[in-house]
């Protein structure tokens, strides 16, 4: 039995999770929520994480019914993400690893998402769509790497939706307004659509050409169609019959619905999970750490620096064939 504790705090969620041989023993989490209309900034996010992390750590141990001696490895998010929050979490992970005399393991955040949903859904070799506030990538496993087949060339899809939501200050759906559709080969681009719709919102709402709800609906339909297209393209390239959606935007039911339609047409299977694992959490870092640790990886303290940029394909996936 191998027990791994995982620390995650690369964006506005701070979570500590404990995993033992594929079982999630505890997974407490806190979210830093800013007032409506505002995004979250690194220093304030770090301050939030710093104020709760030790409490969440205690909760994780208590809920799992474990003592530090029962832990085999301490995993934490090495990157990618926001610098100040990443440092806050890494400091605690490094310190407890040394206090408890346990090996340390730096985990790639995106791989955390993939490994957790792989565990839960037991998908064999899926094409992964990773969509969140900070990331948009289509990933397929090949020869010891999670290869990025396509990605956003500018902002993440969640970022695009959040920023427009702040401009429009509303949420709902209705009739479709045509927006630019920017798939570029295997990749997607969102910043052009965002600028277009931010400007259009001003003009069109004034002339009553459409409602705010129509624009939100249209934005979602357009962005999600683009994502479904690049996922399908990757599936065709890899002859893959499974799709996995991970990341916070993966909670979106419309995205799941649209992806489901594409999968049905291809005779492929769609896997998705609920909020507890789609959204950033500590157990996903623990799970990826569990896989990495069992295949012989650890991180030396001097190499445990955090990094805001950390590509999914930089990691050698030693735990898969």
């Amino acid at each position, binding site marked *: 039995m191998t027990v791994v504790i995982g620390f995650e705090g690369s964006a506005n969620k701070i979570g500590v999770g404990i995993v033992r041989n594929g079982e999630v023993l505890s997974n407490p989490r806190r979210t830093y929520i800013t007032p409506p209309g505002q995004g979250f900034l690194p220093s304030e996010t770090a301050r939030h994480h*710093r104020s709760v992390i*030790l409490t969440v*750590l205690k909760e994780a141990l208590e809920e799992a019914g474990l003592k530090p001696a029962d832990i085999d490895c301490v995993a934490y998010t090495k990157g990618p993400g926001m610098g100040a929050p990443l440092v806050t979490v890494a*400091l*605690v992970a*490094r*310190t407890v690893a040394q*206090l408890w005399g346990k090996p340390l393991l730096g985990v790639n955040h995106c791989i955390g998402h993939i490994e957790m949903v792989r565990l839960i859904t037991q998908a064999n070799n899926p094409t992964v769509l990773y969509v969140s506030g900070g990331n948009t990538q289509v990933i397929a496993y090949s020869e010891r790497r999670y290869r990025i087949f396509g990605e956003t060339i500018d902002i993440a899809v969640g970022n695009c939706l959040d920023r427009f939501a702040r401009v429009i200050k509303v949420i709902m759906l209705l009739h479709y307004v045509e927006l630019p559709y920017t798939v570029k080969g295997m990749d997607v681009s969102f910043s052009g659509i965002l600028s277009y719709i931010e400007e259009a919102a001003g003009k069109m709402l004034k002339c009553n050409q459409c409602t705010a709800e129509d624009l939100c609906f249209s934005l979602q339909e357009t962005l999600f169609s683009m994502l479904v297209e690049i996922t399908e393209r990757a599936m065709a390239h890899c002859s893959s019959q499974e799709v996995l959606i991970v990341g916070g935007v993966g909670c979106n039911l419309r995205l799941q619905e649209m992806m489901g339609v594409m999968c049905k047409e291809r005779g492929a299977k769609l896997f998705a999970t609920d909020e507890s694992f789609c959204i950033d959490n500590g157990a996903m870092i623990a799970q990826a750490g569990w896989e990495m640790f069992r295949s012989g990886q650890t991180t030396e303290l001097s190499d445990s*620096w955090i990094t805001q940029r950390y590509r999914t394909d930089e990691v050698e996936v030693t735990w898969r064939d």
Partner: protein
Amino acid sequence: MMEIPDTFAPSASCALVRSPKLYLPTRITTMAAPCTENNHKQGTLEFALDVPFPSTREASIALQSLSPDREPRKGGISKELTVSGSTLSVRWRADEARILRVSVGSFMDHLSLVMETMELFGPPVPQ
């Protein structure tokens, strides 16, 4: 709470008084050297911090936790951490006072988080 002086005066020292837990530092001394007449042209500022810990082991744990991450700002600031006996020493060099203040301020936040973690989850297991 620790106060970082707004103006760097030679040999400024600050006392930090904390709760009576044995393995928390009870005083941190700092010394700041502003640019003198001689190196005014280079404009190099220095700041020194010495943090006593109850043992060499704990000072080393703090060092290993605090040293891996690089300064967010690439140019204009450098810091060096060392342990001597049971004291963690930090030495900064910076071109501008503002950059130095930001770095020292961040470091103090990080140091206090490490110390709080050690207080809640320590003492360290025997090696």
